[in-house]
């Protein structure tokens, strides 16, 4: 039997019931599209991470509170013992060699308001003068926070690009007064556009002197005692080769200051690479979860095909009998129904590829989520669809091939 004949007969079988064919294919369409979109999203995330490495450089150290470290402040070690403080940052800056900058960050969330325009839930960073240098953000207008601002608890604020646009439009806001929470501050500068890096939208932030956070934005009496607690201390190391040495020195210094040992230190000192590795392992876990979801939907699609093929075999029992009477061998019948299942799954696969590529593009455009469609993922999805078609088409096709011609001809 010629291939064109087999395809023609299978095609006729499908086109007889177009809506049903479409609904049957839907499972495969969704499965294939899901595979492609999932892979495109995780590839996009990976690309973003590798961009982060390039953007941020590898010479930064992040000193942060260990996870869970805050829950058990020891009675004997004093209130400040287990919290990272501004004084720790000063000590690092003053006594560690081989570093070119120390930045302290303490972030809070506040409503920012200029006249009648307000922006809710803005990340307000209390920080120190080296921030633009260490975080690699440039100044668009005005100036950044200075040491004088820090020393005087000056009521000044520097705006991120987007926030400045939202509040002031194209007017230069330097010299204007805005409210951050209940506190009235003078805008002294605007930062240049930087965009989203990782999970951080740099342009939506605003910056105030670190000491102002301690004075005006730490409300509870308990927290006030903890007054100069900070979130992250960023240390810029001059020479990459000294990274490990500097890490050890910082750990020893902090252990001494907090009256503990390096082993029990409630803080972690990590490099940019460590953070990226953590992010990557999170992404990998996420990706394998998505892969399973996609695989499951493909299997569900396959079961849909099997279901419809079984219905089709029953409906067309008489046709099978006629074909057998006129000389079709079991192989011909099996081939016909297998081809039909394969045609369904491949057509579904093709539509799924289009939907997957289109969906990835939409995620990129509308969802603001970076996606990279990998050619291999298209191949993988398409081949999976074919395998699903053959696997789930085989049982119904075999059932059709095994029908007894006499019974089949008698079937109403």
């Amino acid at each position, binding site marked *: *039997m010629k291939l064109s*004949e087999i395809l023609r*007969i299978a095609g*006729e079988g499908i086109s*007889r019931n177009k809506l049903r064919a479409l609904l049957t294919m839907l499972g495969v369409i969704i499965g294939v599209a899901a595979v492609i979109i999932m892979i495109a999203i995780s590839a996009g995330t990976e690309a973003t991470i590798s961009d982060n490495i390039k953007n941020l450089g590898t010479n930064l150290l992040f000193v942060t509170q260990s996870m869970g470290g805050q829950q058990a402040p020891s009675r004997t070690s004093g209130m400040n013992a287990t919290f990272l403080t501004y004084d720790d940052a000063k000590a690092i800056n003053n006594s560690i060699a081989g570093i070119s900058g120390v930045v302290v960050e303490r972030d809070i969330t506040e409503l920012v308001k200029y006249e009648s325009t307000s922006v809710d839930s803005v990340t307000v960073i209390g920080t120190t003068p080296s921030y633009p240098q260490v975080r690699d953000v440039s100044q668009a207008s005005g100036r950044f926070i200075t040491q004088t601002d820090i020393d005087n608890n000056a009521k000044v604020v520097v705006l991120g690009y987007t926030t400045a646009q939202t509040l002031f439009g194209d007017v230069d806001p330097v010299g204007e007064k805005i409210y951050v929470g209940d506190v009235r501050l003078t805008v002294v500068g605007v930062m240049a556009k930087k965009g989203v890096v990782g999970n951080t939208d740099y342009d939506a932030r605003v910056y105030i002197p670190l000491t102002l956070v301690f004075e005006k934005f730490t409300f509870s009496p308990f927290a006030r005692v903890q007054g100069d607690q900070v979130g992250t201390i960023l240390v810029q190391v001059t020479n990459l080769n000294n990274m490990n040495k500097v890490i050890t020195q910082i750990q020893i210094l902090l252990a001494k200051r907090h009256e503990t040992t390096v082993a029990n230190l409630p803080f972690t000192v990590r490099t940019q690479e460590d953070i990226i590795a953590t992010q990557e392992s999170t992404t990998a876990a996420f990706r394998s979860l998505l892969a399973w979801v996609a695989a499951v939907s493909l299997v569900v699609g396959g079961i849909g095909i099997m279901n419809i093929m079984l219905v089709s075999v029953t409906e067309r029992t*008489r*046709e099978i*009998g*006629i*074909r*057998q*009477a*006129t*000389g*079709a*061998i*079991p*192989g*011909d019948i099996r081939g016909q129904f297998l081809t039909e299942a394969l045609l369904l799954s491949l057509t579904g696969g093709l539509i799924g590829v289009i939907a997957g590529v289109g969906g990835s593009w939409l995620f990129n455009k509308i969802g603001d989520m970076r996606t990279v469609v990998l050619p291999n993922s298209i191949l993988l999805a398409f081949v999976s669809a074919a395998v699903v078609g053959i696997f789930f088409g085989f049982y119904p096709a075999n059932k059709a091939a095994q029908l007894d*011609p*006499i019974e089949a*001809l008698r079937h109403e």
Partner: protein
Amino acid sequence: MSETNIIELEQITKIYKMGNVEVTALDGISLSVEAGEFIAIMGPSGSGKSTLMNILGCLDRPTSGSYLLAGEDVSRMSREQLAHIRNQKIGFIFQSYNLLAQATALQNVLMPIVYRRNGHISTKDRLELAHNALISVGLADRDHHKPTEMSGGQQQRVAIARALVNSPALILADEPTGNLDSHSGLEIMTILQDLNAQGRTIVMITHDAKNTAYAEKTVYLKDGKLNGNTNPINESVYAEVGGLT
């Protein structure tokens, strides 16, 4: 055993097992059909007609006995081999036509050619073969009609064209007029008679005594056994009908 015999049945039995009960549907049938013969097999329902038809049509295998079809022993063949035999040596005409409803007349007639395995036939030749078969049953202008757009008589003629298209050694008709009015039935019987006159071997199973008049020979089946031979009346009826055509 004659060289010219198309069908040679030797002591054919067919026993069905239903649980512990054995039902003998055919009980030692022996029958010879010569090339070019037109024979009718008659019998009441339950006589084993359908079973005999299935065995003659190579749709089923006998429990014992031998069946030579055009010189080949088909009684012990595999499903695949039987399918080939059906394709090349047998043309079926069913009571209920058994056409594919969604296919055109031409596509229906093409079906046995599609499943042919001996030698390649170009698409053009296939269409010509099918078209010629339709011409031979008087449906030259019905190539692209679907069964639903045709009368019962026309549908049965398409089925006859399908039975003829692979030039089989045997045409097996199972109650060919059972679903037709008397006029269409007459038409179909006339076509069968013409085919027989052109040298085709025809075996017809029927319970309609009128149809046996067209056959050269009628055998009677009762309780799985054959009795009866050449029906003496047949000769005259055949001559009469032959005179009409």
